[in-house]
């Protein structure tokens, strides 16, 4: 089985601090990590590899330092790593990103594509599903569990109040939730291999077939008008009361403020 796992290197937002003067994020010196939903996707792939045998290719689009995310994936047990990097890819929104990734994936063999549900620095949850559309593949999003049964994938698709069990035949695309598993630690020996034996394949624009009007900043229909930090108007207050009393309290407070 050939599995492709799409990963993204993101700033560790649990370590990001706000500049008290400007209210913007201070990204300098913030460590980069593999996006948590993607890391669980990689773990899901590794578990299929442990159980049934598989060849795992991780692919990422980003600047050269995204190499670290691929080396970490090697450290966990991924077999092959491709880094899509080119000035022409920079500034991409979800559309341009998914067009670029899909063009690269077209060159690869696969039975299953896994992408994390969403990245903690963008929270769009669009890139995985868009890749599936570009490649005309069936997709199951929000996977909380994944197993193989009689040659099909059984995916537990999570909802807020329940789940669906979806049976899907490969090739297909699945987006994974970080809650689905606890990703393994890297192995000392695999880290050494990652640096001494494995090569990261660097692909740029010339290596893939993609419409240039669909990539990078110019190929991105999304235009960010303004970003700002939401101000806090007043400190919240916590009441620990019975639900019935709480409802009454909420209504009273809303009335007090002339909201209802």
């Amino acid at each position, binding site marked *: 089985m050939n599995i492709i796992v799409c990963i993204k290197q993101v700033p560790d937002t649990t370590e990001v601090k706000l500049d008290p003067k400007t209210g913007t994020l201070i990204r300098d010196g913030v460590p980069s990590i593999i996006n948590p939903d993607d890391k669980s996707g990689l773990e899901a792939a590794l578990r299929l590899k442990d159980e049934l045998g598989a060849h795992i290719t991780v692919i990422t689009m980003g600047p050269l330092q995204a190499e*670290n995310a691929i*080396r*970490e994936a090697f*450290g966990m047990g991924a077999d092959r790593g491709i880094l899509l990097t080119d000035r022409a890819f920079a500034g991409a929104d979800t559309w341009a990103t998914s067009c670029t990734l899909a063009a690269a994936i077209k060159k690869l063999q696969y039975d299953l594509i896994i992408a994390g549900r969403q990245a903690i620095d963008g929270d769009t949850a669009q890139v995985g599903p868009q890749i599936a559309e570009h490649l005309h593949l069936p997709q199951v999003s929000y996977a909380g569990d994944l197993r193989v049964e009689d040659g099909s994938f059984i995916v537990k698709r999570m909802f807020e109040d329940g789940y669906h069990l979806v049976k899907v035949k490969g090739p297909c695309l699945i987006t994974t939730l970080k809650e689905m598993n606890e990703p393994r*630690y*890297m*192995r*000392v*020996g*695999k*880290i*050494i*291999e*990652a*640096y*001494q034996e494995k090569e990261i394949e660097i692909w740029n624009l010339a290596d893939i077939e993609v419409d240039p009007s669909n990539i990078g900043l110019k190929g991105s229909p999304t235009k960010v008008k303004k970003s700002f930090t939401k101000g806090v108007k007043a400190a919240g207050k916590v009441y620990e009361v019975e639900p019935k009393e709480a409802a009454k309290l909420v209504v009273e407070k809303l009335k007090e403020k002339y909201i209802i």
Partner: protein
Amino acid sequence: MNFNLSKEHIMLQKLYKEFSDHEVKPLAEEIDEKEVFPIDTVRKLKECGFMGIPFPKAYGGAGADQLAYAMAVEALSKVCATTGVIVSAHTSLCAAPIFEFGTEEQKQKYLIPLAKGEKLGAFGLTEANAGTDASAQQTIAILEGDHYLINGSKIFITNAGYADIYIIMAMTDKSQGTRGISAFIVEADTEGFSVGKKEAKLGIKGSATCELILENCRIPKENLLGKEGKGFSIAMKTLDGGRIGIAAQALGIAQGALDETVAYVKERKQFGKPLSYFQNTQFQLADMDTKVEAARLLVYKAAFNKTMGLPYSKEAAMAKLFASETAMEVTTKAVQLHGGYGYTREYPVERMMRDAKITEIYEGTSEVQRMVISAQLLK
């Protein structure tokens, strides 16, 4: 000259930190309090490849260098010195001499399972009457046909009772003095081999430290490690390497105590101000940090020399001497800066201070390190 870590060492540090923070730190207090050997942690260490870091892949190891190994012991010891010494004794004192002095058959049979972490290793040199004077061995090995008959006992053996494979020193020819000592690979299930009294200790309480008893143990001739009469030399060379591990353990303990103290002095208030506001605190911390960094440079230098095949006996002795005395000094200061709370088990620095002391004693006391260093100066 380049003091930067390579990218692979930085990635290894990430693994070591994640593993230590999530798998080792949460247990440190309990294994100290209850004096239990962390058997589950050893299994997890095996899975992640910590038990054979500096050995070639062909022998089941990770194929990493001595620095990668020292950094692992440092990171584990930063949160739990017991866990650090389990890895250090296994790697440096049991697997390493088989790798360095063993025959190909011995490496296939013993090094591979040790490096893979399938078997745990230990080392037996010290006896009741042979401590720093290690040449006064009373354990005797007599060649009888195709095997040696070993009789005697060892004390203070790290990993005893949990280890599957032991390197045991015994006298094969008393008339030859140190040249009459030989090294043997002894399996734990050998008839006549047993584990005696478990020591009640000041620190590293989760580590198993016991007596070994060898009563008419029949050890096959092919388990002689190196040549007959070379045991003392093998033991001394093994301890040169082991000192890098213990120096790294001491470095980790010191760094752990420093980190705990930095966090504490920012929070603890006296006279209306955090302790970090007072110059005494600042000066103490500056001294602690400077010593820890100096210790780190010595430890990493010794590891580097061993990896490069350069002489490292003096460097390892210096690293162990300085790092262990730093660990004692820094942990003592850490307790002092924590005040009354530092003396209680509510904070980990009292454990760290108790753990630090052994690093000045085992695998060659500080006095022995001074002997090794000065002997190289005066030769």
